[in-house]
């Protein structure tokens, strides 16, 4: 179990597999660079990401804003109308920041120098699935995101404690409201069922007692931070997993992580996330044992996974449905184009079934084939066109008219609400800038590839699939190109979209 992959099996395909899974994929140049490093160093480069400086600044609004806090705190003194107006403005501001936050994170994934770190942040976001829809504060969502980033590959118990005290989580699972008179069980239950142990590994009594242990942990709205209120804490005697004591929140989490089921649960889930398959019982045991021996640290586990023969086995490779985020980020990286503007990315991801910072529920997204329905598949095929041809201007409030409207504090609906309407079509006027950001074929294809149909198809396979198309699909693509006469830019762009509109492109 977990024997390192032999060096002679290291090639373009396996390096691409590593980059797809441990990161978000990349263009042929990046894959070739990993091939040249050899398997050990390639994995190390991804895993030891702290050595690479992270230069992305935090969003402007992420700093504390005492002025705003004062304003909101003083809302009680205002009249009902004034208070409602203030709340509406605040909601609007938070929505706008959420849109920015989504763009900020996607940009990190697409352009950042630490792909594994961002991949792990995405994993933790899906794992501790917290939604803006209840938290309603973009700054708190950003702070949680930063916590996941800081502790992305660190120690399990430390991450768990910090997440339990994270303001967004305190709001999301109602821990902020829990007090000794009547403890709220929501967090106590989900932390065991979904975050650490799994169903059947705890009793209803453990939930009730765990909730008592957690009382006192709450969120201080004025200070925008975690506080432990001793007067809210139930100091009585508790029995959890058959152990007795006067436990508090940290004790409870420590007791959980010490359970044998805890190591099995999280290592299995990580394997599923990265390998896309269920581990065999043997492999699951090996992963859990390695994790335990390393003191519940994630980095040694990840290194072992990415080096292992099992990770490169045929049933793992090219057998995972890309998540919508993986699909989007992987596509812009492989196509070597910029990310579309944040609002366009958000609309694309929503149509494919993954709203960042708004998972469907506390269980997170269903990975794998769960991403694919007739509806979301059709959306992928159509969103491919946006990436290939370039996004339209005037989309989702980006039209100059809509921006002015926002600036003036008017309703935003004008731009976003009428895609076919007059406001959105006005940039059609002569001199309007062309659709921005499509694929530059000269940038990603050599002269030879742009003039020979066979070479073109080969180049697209290598770049977009890192594998061969099915023979019948290769034939269809060739017939399409033949029907278009001599190769030109339009034909090449259409061919790229066709490759992206195959079942093959949806897996990696």
């Amino acid at each position: 179990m977990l024997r390192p992959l032999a060096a002679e099996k290291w090639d373009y395909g396996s390096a691409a597999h590593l980059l797809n899974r441990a990161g978000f994929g990349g263009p042929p140049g990046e894959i070739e660079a990993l091939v040249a490093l050899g398997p050990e160093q390639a994995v190390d480069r991804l895993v030891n990401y702290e050595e690479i400086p992270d230069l992305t600044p935090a969003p402007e609004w992420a700093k504390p804003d005492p002025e705003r806090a004062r304003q909101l705190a003083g809302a009680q003194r205002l009249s009902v109308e004034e208070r409602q107006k203030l709340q509406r403005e605040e909601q609007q501001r938070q929505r706008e920041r959420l849109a920015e936050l989504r763009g900020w994170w996607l940009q990190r994934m697409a352009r950042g120098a630490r792909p594994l770190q961002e991949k792990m942040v995405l994993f933790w976001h899906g794992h501790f699935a917290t939604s803006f829809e209840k938290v309603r504060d973009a700054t708190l969502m950003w702070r949680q995101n930063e916590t996941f980033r800081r502790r992305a590959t660190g120690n399990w118990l430390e991450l768990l404690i910090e997440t339990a005290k994270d303001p967004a989580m305190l709001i999301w699972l109602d821990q902020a409201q829990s007090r000794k008179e009547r403890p709220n069980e929501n967090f106590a239950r989900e932390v065991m069922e979904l975050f650490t142990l799994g169903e059947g590994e705890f009793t209803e009594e453990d939930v009730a007692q765990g909730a008592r242990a957690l009382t006192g942990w709450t969120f201080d709205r004025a200070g925008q931070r975690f506080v432990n209120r001793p007067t809210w804490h139930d100091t009585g005697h508790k029995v959890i997993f058959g152990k007795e004591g006067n436990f508090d929140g940290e004790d409870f989490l420590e007791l959980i992580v010490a359970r044998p089921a805890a190591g099995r649960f999280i290592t299995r889930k990580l394997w599923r996330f990265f390998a896309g398959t269920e581990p065999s019982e043997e492999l699951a045991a090996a992963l859990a044992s390695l994790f335990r021996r390393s003191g519940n640290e994630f980095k040694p586990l990840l290194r072992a996974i990415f080096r292992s023969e099992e990770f490169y086995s045929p049933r793992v490779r090219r057998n995972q449905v890309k998540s919508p985020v993986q699909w989007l980020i992987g596509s812009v990286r492989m196509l070597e184009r910029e990310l579309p503007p944040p609002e366009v990315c958000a609309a694309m991801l929503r149509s494919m079934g993954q709203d960042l910072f708004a998972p469907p529920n506390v269980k997170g997204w269903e990975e794998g084939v769960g991403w694919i329905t007739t509806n979301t598949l059709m959306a992928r095929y159509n969103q491919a066109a946006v990436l290939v041809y370039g996004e339209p201007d005037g989309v989702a409030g980006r039209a100059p008219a809509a921006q002015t409207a926002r600036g003036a504090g008017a309703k935003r609906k004008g731009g976003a609400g009428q895609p076919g309407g007059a406001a959105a079509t006005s940039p059609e006027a002569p001199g309007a800038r062309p659709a921005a950001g499509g694929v530059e074929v000269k940038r990603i294809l050599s002269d030879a590839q742009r003039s020979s149909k066979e070479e073109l198809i080969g180049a697209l396979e290598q770049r977009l699939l890192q594998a061969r198309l099915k023979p019948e699909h290769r034939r269809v693509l060739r017939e399409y190109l033949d029907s278009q006469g001599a190769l030109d830019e339009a034909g090449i762009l259409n061919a790229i979209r066709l490759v992206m509109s195959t079942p093959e492109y949806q897996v990696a």
Partner: protein
Amino acid sequence: MKKELTFQTRREFLRHAVLGGALTWTVPAFLAHTFAALAAQGTGRRVQAATGRDGTILVVLQMAGGNDGLNTVVPYANDEYHRARPRLGLAGDKVLKLTDELGLNPALVGFKALYDGGQLAIVQGVGYPNPNRSHFRSTEIWQTASEANRSERYGWIGRYFDAACGGGDADVGVSVGRQMPQAFRAKRPKGISLDNPQTYRFMTSGRPRPGQKDALEESFRKLNQVDEAAAEHPGGTLAAIGGAGPVDGSALDFVERTALEAQVSSDRIRAIAGRGTNQAAYPASNLGNSLRLVARLIGGGMPTRVYYVSQGGYDTHTNQLAAQERLLKDLSDSVQAFVKDLKAQGQLARVLLMTFSEFGRRVAENASGGTDHGAAAPLFVVGERVKAGLVGRHPSLAPDQLFRGDLKHTLDFRSVYATLLEDWLETPSLPLLGKAFPKIGLV
């Protein structure tokens, strides 16, 4: 040749491709816009009668999150109720009275009207033995009609598709939204999901080079066809794969299969969606939009037997009163509009709508103005041919009659399923549910 709906410019096309998804929730009017365009292709509403597709239809409405049954159908005259809920309890002068003991939540004005009009049944105390308080496990139990301690692979509707809709089209089941409910998971995969007919197609700019048909779309079709022989025999290389579930075959097999279904159903839905016209005003909500689309597809003559829509947000651990009222108002207004619409379209007699939620909530309120996960709760069945009124027995609220602070169920939810399968979808329930559950008078 009828005129294809095409986008005149690439820019216009791209706008649809991106915004199509976004509009489904930001712009409530999207359907009107969509159907106005599609109506041009419609070939008239009488087609539906000619196709002979007039079987009964079941609409399943999931109230996700665990709706608090006690504040939905309220035992307002019960002292135990008010003792357990000093803050959340609804008094007799607030509720919409049904009897001397029970009343509807004040937000359920539409449901009260349906009740009074003989179109709403309230099935009381629905649950199952050994209730599970996890959202996911309990939802799974409802979706697969399993025992609480057993995992069942296929959904109860999926098993119905397998048993009664063999060889037919994927669109015997339509789920409105992006996800496929576990209830649809079947041995032979069936069921499609969509939320916007206009973007439910492979969109091209509609400007093929002069003198050519749209070669791009032709190629797309070929790339998304599955070997027909394999598709017909799911025991072969295309292994049995459930809706949103674990896979037997490879991930690629699953995507290929879905691609074929998407293509076939896309053609059909575009043809059908333009035929009907909605004849009622719906709330501008996700649920309202979903039911509006369902009414449209029913009126247009889809051969679909089961539709699935859902409404989320019922996990009211904190500040429940306002949140639940808002949700129940949306529910009641949307369903009322749906009924009115179907009535006007002459379709109501063949449609039955059933609501469900994975569990009710604790009898006692918590300290945060909310309620925690509980057990039994009422569900609603709506239709013209429903036996309206209160069905079954309300569970006792006496403390010694509760199980760990929860209501004990008085009716197994599988009795409701058995009744709907046999008396509405006309299928024997025993093979599908694995056990005989006594039917209740519903239809």
